[in-house]
């Protein structure tokens, strides 16, 4: 029973690491800035997922607080990037 559970956790972490690699490829390739912002957003979600699994594996629920902070920061970061893209556009139009 315990073996099955730890194996399932292992497979989950493996899948998340593969997902992080794929997302990293999109961050590096991404032809435009919005593509990269989408990928960074997904990357932080993946980090939250890994923290959630880690808190389950290590029997320590204090790590869930990190997820709250990370979710707030990620949301603000994405909004800031979107505003920056629009600001860049309006600056180009005025010049």
């Amino acid at each position, binding site marked *: *029973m315990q073996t*099955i*559970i730890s194996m*399932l*956790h292992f*497979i*989950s*972490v493996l*899948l*998340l690491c*593969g*997902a*992080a690699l*794929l*997302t990293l*490829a*999109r961050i590096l390739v991404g032809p*435009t800035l*919005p*593509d990269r*912002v*989408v*990928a960074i*957003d*997904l990357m932080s*979600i*993946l980090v*939250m*997922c890994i923290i*959630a*699994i880690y*808190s*389950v594996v290590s029997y320590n*629920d204090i790590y*869930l*607080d990190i*997820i*709250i902070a990370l*979710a*707030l920061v*990620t*949301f603000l970061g*994405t*909004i800031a*990037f*979107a*505003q920056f*893209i*629009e600001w*860049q*556009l309006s600056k180009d*139009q005025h010049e």
Partner: protein
Amino acid sequence: MSELISSILGLLGALFCFIAALGVLRMPDILLRMHASTKAGTLGISLLLISAAVHFGTFPVTAKVILIIIFMFIANPIAAHVLARAAYFIDIPLWKGTVIDELREHYDQKTHELGSDQNIPVKKTH
């Protein structure tokens, strides 16, 4: 038993996150990429958090998890909407297989105003 359920939920969440990452890598343009990342990402993190709640089974953890999930379900669509809006403003190239772009004809690129003039025919983009 609850640990087994928790780990299966965690595996499902990880699978959804993997699908989201695959979609972000493989989809051809930004709106399709967001379609993959936002939906699957939100579902993935929610399933993983529910797995943590099932695993611990105490009230503070469950309350925290519900809080995070509600925040995710409010914040992620807002972030995706704002980003898609910005991407549309800077004329991101759409996929060449895009059949129709109904916003293009009703939308002023300079003033960012949206008209609802029904007389303007909606053109196909290709």
